[in-house]
């Protein structure tokens, strides 16, 4: 048995707002699994897509600043949001490759850039650091019979070599975690298609079109629910699901769980500790039907 795992924690803006249940379930799950989690004090927004879209230097500087703040807390940096994860990793990648950009960023944040710290997505912590075996040992309510469509979205694995989380075209890391907690995963076609999160505010029509294709594929593959590891994906798949059903006159009724919610369920956390009530598509009927509550 390895020594106790300890991480610094960068929740990101969404987890302090619309994705509160992700934050809650993450903290509760890590407590249950006896993994240390210390929130980075006074972290900033990473800039997300809008920043790098129009101002790469700003995006890099914000992330570098966050890396610097995180470095003061013990342990590797645990990140919950796929977009924050992608930005922090990209920053490390770009700045280690470009001397010019690194100098500019150092000047902007007035501090040295931390390039060698480990930034880890929650998935990576569960699947690699903890490992499927130890995770399986903690399971006391296996999610047997629950058919889950794992939705990776764009930024968890892309582009090649940057997040370095799993195979860029055929990742299995989500399936590995779910298998360890006894759930069943379905093979489906749209697990890495983009949901258009960038346009959720500005062009919701686009988002509805893209997200519908994703939900349609998951439903067609026979999934009971969808699992995500990103608050932005969740925002589109869950929050907009009713709207999509209305626009396309379909009925999906696919609860969209966060990674930590499903794993939390398996290790015996109750609905209140997982924030299930905050989900727009009510998961309770499904969980009751499967005998998981």
């Amino acid at each position: 048995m390895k020594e106790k795992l300890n991480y610094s924690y960068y929740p990101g803006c969404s987890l302090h707002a619309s994705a509160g249940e992700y934050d809650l379930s993450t903290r509760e799950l890590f407590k249950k699994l006896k993994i240390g989690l210390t929130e980075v004090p006074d972290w900033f927004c990473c800039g997300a897509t809008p920043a790098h879209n129009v101002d790469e230097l700003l995006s890099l500087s914000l992330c570098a600043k966050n890396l610097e703040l995180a470095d003061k807390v013990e342990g590797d940096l645990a990140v919950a949001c796929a977009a924050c994860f992608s930005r922090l990793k990209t920053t490390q990648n770009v700045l280690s490759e470009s001397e010019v950009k690194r100098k500019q960023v150092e000047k902007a944040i007035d501090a040295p850039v931390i390039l060698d710290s480990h930034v880890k997505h929650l998935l990576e912590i569960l699947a690699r650091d903890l490992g499927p075996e130890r995770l399986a040992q903690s399971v006391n309510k296996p999610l047997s019979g629950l058919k889950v469509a794992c939705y990776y979205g764009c930024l968890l694995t892309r582009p090649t070599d940057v997040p370095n989380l799993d195979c860029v075209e055929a990742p299995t890391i989500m399936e590995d975690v779910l298998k360890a907690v006894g759930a069943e995963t379905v093979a489906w076609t749209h697990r890495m298609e983009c949901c258009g999160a960038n346009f959720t505010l500005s062009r919701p029509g686009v988002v509805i079109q893209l997200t519908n294709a994703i939900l349609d594929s998951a439903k067609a593959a026979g999934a009971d629910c969808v699992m995500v590891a990103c608050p932005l994906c969740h925002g589109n798949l869950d929050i907009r699901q009713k709207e999509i059903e209305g626009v396309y006159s379909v009925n999906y009724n696919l609860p969209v769980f966060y990674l930590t919610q499903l794993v939390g369920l398996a290790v015996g956390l109750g609905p209140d500790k997982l924030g299930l009530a905050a989900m727009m598509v009510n998961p309770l009927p499904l969980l009751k039907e499967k005998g998981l509550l």
Partner: protein
Amino acid sequence: MQSLSRHFTLMSTVQFLIGGILLSIKGCFVKKKKMIISQETMDVDFVRKVEALSGTSVRRCFQCGKCSAGCPMATFMEHPPNRVVRLLQLGQWQRILAGRSIWYCASCETCTTRCPNKVDLTSIMDALRKLSWDAEGASKESYVQLANKLFLQNIRTYGRQYEMRLAAVFNVKSGQFLKDLMLGPKLISKGKLKMFQSKNKNLSEIEKIFTRIEEMRRKGEAL
């Protein structure tokens, strides 16, 4: 009071509509116009700027079309991704910035991931958007730009993103008061839109980063 605000909404919607139509007519004209190519019309400096910002080679692209084949947003663009690169190769940036293609990029990285030639198209798009902002008003897609602008303003002011405020301000500024009206209360009831949030005690830091970058640009130390 109510009628006044309705009047205001109507006005801005009409304004947007007319502006949009005018811009798309202009866009069509540019799109179809014969390309006169010479050393003068090929803006190599602009291409170099894009290459410096994106850290990738534009010339390397041999127009296989894989980026456009996989782009989730290609159907919404008037210049699909491969054509954006092609126009860039010919130094015809005005044609790119006149359209809304760059603003319809979702930054999903599909193109970069699958490019056979290691052209980092996502970064090229980033660079083009940045240069479009520098060129001020070159591009016509206003909603996405507005959202981006507000997002960055929020970071500067609060250090973090406040979705409630972002959405509200966006709706006011874009004149779409009724947008996602049905969603709001539900989100609040689910605790998803918080009215107040924990403040960052380090706000001066973020302002410093913004000002330092602005200063570097003023001095020409950064693009």
